């Protein structure tokens, strides 16, 4: 990897200016577990690497305004060590922790997972179901966007030249809320999702679902937020009829490809099964979170 240039600014505005000046081959670096693999294999041409990890806001987990702010370059291992985050958002944390091995967890961030824009990125369905937003810094200043608007196709994002994600925000959590993420891989560790499903819901005092969001990974070019699947749970206690409706809605939303990991038919069927199971887990967690 010769002809690589590297800078590690400490201010977000410096990073945005450098990314803009660096042109098409300039890249933000968080954990490097995608970027360095792509550079080393020659899939990405060398250029300017802008390390975000020396920007204080891009590292760490902060509780703000009743929600959580997660610095873009915070590694998965730090998420699993944060007790309050794990209690409020167990589904987001379990999704991020599925990424790779212990070594990969020491580096891999959710923002990198998001901006790499793989349809199978594990943390993204959980973040989309959580209605997470990101703070984006660019040459023109800051803006906020839903996590679901970042990836626009495999390997492609909606970020403009010079823009990068500085923080991921998880909204305030009402009582009796729960989330869960499940993925299917052919082995128990270290593989890419055949399908991933994230469910996030809130119950009223009687256990009736008042809000529900269902997101699916690896069944379309980008992660899908399946509004009909969420709607199938609302007003129910996630009973068998509601789960059957959610399963059907999840399958109907799928637009997958066939590859060595699974056929279109298999992926579609599994999407329904995983959405059902994740909904059941999320429901159980919501009941326990008084």
């Amino acid at each position, binding site marked *: 990897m010769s002809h690589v240039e590297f800078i590690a600014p400490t201010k977000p505005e410096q990073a945005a200016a450098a990314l803009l000046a660096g042109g098409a081959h300039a890249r933000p670096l968080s954990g490097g577990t995608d970027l*360095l693999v792509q550079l080393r294999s020659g899939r990405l041409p060398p250029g300017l690497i802008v390390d975000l990890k020396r920007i204080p806001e891009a590292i760490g987990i902060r509780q703000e305004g009743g929600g959580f702010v997660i610095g873009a370059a915070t590694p998965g291992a730090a998420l699993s060590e944060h007790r309050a985050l794990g209690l409020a958002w167990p589904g987001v944390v379990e999704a991020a922790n599925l990424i790779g091995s212990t070594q990969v967890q020491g580096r891999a961030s959710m923002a990198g997972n998001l901006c790499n824009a793989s349809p199978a990125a594990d943390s993204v369905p959980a973040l989309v179901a959580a209605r997470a937003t990101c703070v984006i810094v660019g040459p023109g200043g800051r803006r906020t966007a839903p996590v679901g608007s970042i990836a626009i196709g495999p390997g492609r994002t909606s970020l403009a030249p010079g823009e990068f994600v500085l923080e991921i925000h998880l909204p305030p959590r009402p009582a009796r809320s729960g989330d869960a993420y499940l993925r299917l891989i052919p082995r128990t560790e270290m593989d890419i999702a055949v399908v991933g499903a994230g469910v996030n819901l809130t119950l009223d005092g009687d256990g009736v679902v008042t809000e529900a969001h269902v997101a699916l990974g690896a069944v379309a070019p980008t992660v899908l937020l399946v509004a009909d699947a969420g709607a199938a749970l609302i007003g129910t206690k996630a009973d068998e009829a509601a789960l059957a409706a959610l399963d059907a809605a999840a399958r109907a939303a799928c637009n997958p490809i066939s590859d060595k990991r699974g056929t279109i038919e298999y992926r579609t069927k599994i999407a329904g099964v995983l959405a059902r199971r994740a909904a059941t887990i999320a429901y159980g967690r919501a009941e326990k979170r008084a």
Partner: protein
Amino acid sequence: MSKRQHISAVVNGDPVDFLTDPGATLLDALRDDLGLTGSKEGCGSGDCGACSVILDGRLVCSCLVLAVEAEGRRVETIEGMADGSKLHPLQQKFLEHAALQCGFCTPGLLVAAKALLDVNPDPTESEARYWLAGNLCRCTGYDKVIRAVMDAAAELRQVRV
């Protein structure tokens, strides 16, 4: 060629300085600039764990870290594990349990196992297996590795009380 950068870091407790190409990995710098050839390159893509080191307290693949990222950071490698000629209990148990054959994966497995016992002195077997899932071994079939790690953990707990 890009301009080489001067990096100061702490490796196994000792301050080190080296010049590196901005595209070089930490693994390259450890092996080629600092002569620490214990860390191995099995894949170069984060899959095998032979290059495992501890960077500022976190287990990472040094093949997926740029050497320039190490500026001001602490790096622990396999070379820092024994105390002079006295082996670390993990190293001793790997020998006793014959947890290595060709030995290529061994430095990475030892560093990863040490990182586990640093945070979890009393892991279950399944915790140890999951923790070490990113360390591939072509020879041993893992059972002896796991036995050595569990045995070393037990011995270290004895030492601590």
